[in-house]
């Protein structure tokens, strides 16, 4: 075992982690621990753009952006946080340009902007051109640019280090604060303890709880999982976004930019069905509405294909040169993986699990909360792992690339500032003990259950019972299945017993996080007897502001026998200027 000491430890090297590292690295002794090489992070898969009211191509302002964000989130957004994000968006885009990000340009040489779902002028009048982009690889450009800046600033990375525990200590003042993290080095199998004054969680999402997902294999909710196991709450986990246009059967993302550039969704009868569901902005309605409309078309027998189980994304009316200039990557995905030529054929699409609106609760300073109000000193979170909450019950397209830049930067600054004023906390006794026990328990286990089988069954039940449409019965079925899977998980074994690059062992660890997080998602979904944003209950199809316009706060409980359970509480929504209205587009 090795022990290290840093002012700031950042966990994760996607957009949020690296944006934080650029700030913290210039102000304090900073280490970035990442389970992947930084440029492998899933920020790189984001396509369509990053919204900011630059008003480069038409009238716009950040207040309209804030309103769209609040309405898009079906009024579960904390409005003070949305104001911060949309106001700082402009500076965040300009910062990236100054770092060298190659944005597409207007004829005048300024940053070009395009339309995106749910982004409107003057509180819903019409779609507005707000998304700043680099073809359909904006996330790739952001990830590369942030990594380039980390190279420039000589940020210290620990690549392929899996952080498996969060260290919290209670001082003489009775306050529970951060003391660091424990990590597993993939190359050697060695355990490392990092004593740190500040820790920033920036580990991304947990899309692998679902089978059909746009998420990478590595998005297993590790950051949410370690916080959860240390007794910290998770907020609004029942809200999971299903992106409308995944490649049918595969889940690979086709950007909303396809519709922003003029693409149209059609059912099996060739009808532009979004005209019925969102008469004003049609195909550019927010993702929850489009995904639900698509699923409904299929359910009512108007799907396309031999099994009528998908709908079609039609780009055939667009000029091939326009497609090549603005949507080169996603059209290549259609050719490579489905053998479909988007110039001439519509592309089969179906909703795919995409984004966790919920996560580790933070305030606008990115400080992690231990309950509705109490800050955990020294612990910060930003990006998809966190819930600020700027996305409420449904995130608008492009607002995640914005989130990681605005709150990643804030986290880096806040972590460095805290480390400058607070002493390095002492490590708890035997800080590595729990991680060593977890790993050795898995390595020496001799059960007959297989990780891949349990994971597949987890993903199957979540797709079947906790996806776009949910009911009390389906969610109870999911919970029953998850309970049984967790019992079987206790009986797994891994085949690779080695120390070097033991990815077999780590897949087992990751599955543990996925199972527990799936239970939190389902528990919250059962309790929320209303439909709001990404959470749609067929047995409660209306939004219920009287009883449910509040955040869900889930806590891990332990019974006398040491078995864990879930206790649910609520947290008020912060409302500043927008009172809830019916959500029509």
């Amino acid at each position: 075992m090795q022990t290290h000491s840093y002012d700031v430890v950042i966990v994760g090297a996607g957009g949020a982690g690296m944006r934080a590292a650029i700030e913290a690295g210039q102000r304090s002794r900073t280490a970035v621990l990442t389970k992947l090489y930084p440029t492998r992070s899933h920020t790189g898969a984001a396509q369509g753009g990053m919204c900011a009211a630059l008003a480069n191509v038409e009238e716009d302002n950040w207040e309209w952006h804030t309103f769209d964000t609040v309405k898009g989130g079906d009024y579960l957004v904390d409005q003070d946080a949305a104001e911060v994000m949309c106001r700082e968006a402009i500076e965040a885009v300009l910062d990236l340009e100054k770092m060298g990000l190659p944005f597409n340009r207007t004829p005048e040489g300024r940053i070009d902007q395009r339309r995106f779902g749910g982004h409107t002028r003057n509180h819903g009048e019409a779609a507005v051109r707000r998304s700043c982009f680099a073809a359909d690889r904006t996330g790739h450009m952001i990830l590369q640019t942030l990594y380039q800046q980390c190279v420039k600033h000589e940020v210290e990375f620990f690549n392929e280090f899996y952080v498996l525990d969060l260290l919290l200590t209670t001082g003489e003042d009775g306050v529970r604060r951060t003391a660091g993290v424990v990590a597993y080095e993939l190359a050697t199998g060695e355990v490392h303890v990092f004593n740190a004054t500040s820790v920033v969680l920036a580990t991304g999402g947990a899309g692998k709880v679902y089978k059909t997902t746009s998420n990478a294999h590595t998005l297993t909710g590790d950051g949410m999982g370690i916080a959860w196991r240390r007794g910290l709450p998770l907020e609004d986990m029942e809200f999971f976004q299903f992106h409308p246009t995944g490649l049918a059967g595969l889940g690979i993302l086709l950007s909303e930019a396809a519709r922003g550039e003029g693409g149209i969704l059609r059912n099996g009868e060739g009808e532009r069905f979004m005209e019925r569901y969102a008469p004003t902005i049609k195909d550019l309605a927010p993702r929850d509405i489009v995904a639900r409309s698509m699923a409904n078309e299929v359910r009512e027998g108007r799907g396309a294909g031999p099994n009528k189980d998908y709908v079609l994304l039609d780009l055939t009316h667009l000029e091939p040169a326009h497609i090549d200039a603005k949507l080169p990557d996603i059209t290549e995905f259609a050719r490579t993986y489905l053998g479909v030529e988007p110039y001439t054929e519509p592309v089969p699409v179906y909703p795919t699990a995409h984004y966790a609106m919920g996560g580790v609760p933070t305030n606008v300073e990115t400080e992690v909360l231990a309950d509705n109000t109490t800050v955990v000193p020294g612990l910060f979170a930003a990006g998809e792992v966190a819930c600020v909450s700027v996305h409420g019950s449904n995130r608008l397209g492009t607002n995640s690339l914005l989130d990681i830049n605005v709150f990643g930067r804030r986290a880096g600054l806040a972590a460095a500032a805290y480390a400058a004023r607070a002493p390095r906390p002492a490590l708890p006794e035997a800080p590595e003990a729990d991680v060593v026990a977890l790993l050795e328990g898995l390595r020496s286990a001799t059960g007959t259950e297989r990780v891949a089988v349990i994971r597949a069954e987890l993903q199957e039940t979540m797709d079947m019972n906790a996806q776009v449409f949910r009911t009390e019965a389906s969610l109870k079925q999911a919970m029953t299945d998850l309970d049984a899977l967790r019992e079987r998980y206790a009986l797994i074994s891994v085949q690779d017993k080695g120390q070097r690059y033991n990815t077999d062992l780590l897949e087992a660890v990751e599955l543990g996080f996925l199972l527990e997080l799936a239970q939190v998602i389902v528990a919250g979904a059962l309790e929320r007897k209303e439909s709001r944003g990404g959470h749609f209950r067929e047995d409660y199809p209306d939004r219920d502001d009287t009883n449910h316009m509040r955040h869900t706060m889930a806590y891990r409980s332990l019974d006398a026998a040491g078995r864990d359970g879930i206790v649910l509480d609520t947290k008020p929504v912060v409302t500043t200027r927008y009172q809830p209205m019916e959500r029509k587009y």
Partner: protein
Amino acid sequence: MSTTTAVLDDAARTSTDSKGKAGEIAGFDVTIRVRRYDPEKDTEPHWEDYTVSAYSTDRLLDALHKIKWEIDGSLTFRRSCAHGVCGSDAMRINGRNRLACKALLRDLEPSKPITVEAIKGLPVEKDLVVDMEPFFQSYREIMPFLITSGHEPTKERIQSQHDRERFDDTTKCILCAACTSSCPVFWTDGQYFGPAAIVNAHRFIFDSRDEGSDIRLEVLNDREGVWRCRTTFNCSEACPRGIEVTKAIAEVKQALLTRKL
């Protein structure tokens, strides 16, 4: 060489299930021949055959997962996004560098064993995993970040659409190392910067906003720099992003000769 066969297990199939793939469903058995090496157990690398059931639209990555998840959990490879944008899973497949997640089985002559080995020229750590550090070291040496002087503008820098287009091709790089590890010069001379580092230098040298071209060109004028390129075009063929790598290298050579961008 040993052979193992997967028992078909529907429950363990992943999101690559045939469902919804425009009606095309034709299952078949395919043999994957993997060059394996675990320094904790093996004195030298050896080939091992695995037969798995697959669909023609499956990617090689799906077959590797099937082996790992159903036959031998110790088979080790890197992967993440599984659709060709993260650059984790560059491998030598039937003797050619490709991403396992972009190589469809039906395009790999699946009637014969498909060979899979680690990319060449970088130290093999375990099975298909190589040490990427020398590769990233070369990348860092070309100073892959925008270099400017003077005051920053209050708003964005202005760049014409034409100037933006000038370096568009080389912005696509995902640092997968497929190009560099396909280069015969790199195989014999590990000090050579390699195509990927030159591609990333090109990305900044031809960016109208950048003022660091002279320094980068000097770095690449080194004896281990662009002049080692023998124009074999392996790199261009290997690039999973379709970057015209050899052309980018030629443009850097030209810039060095004329010192004109």
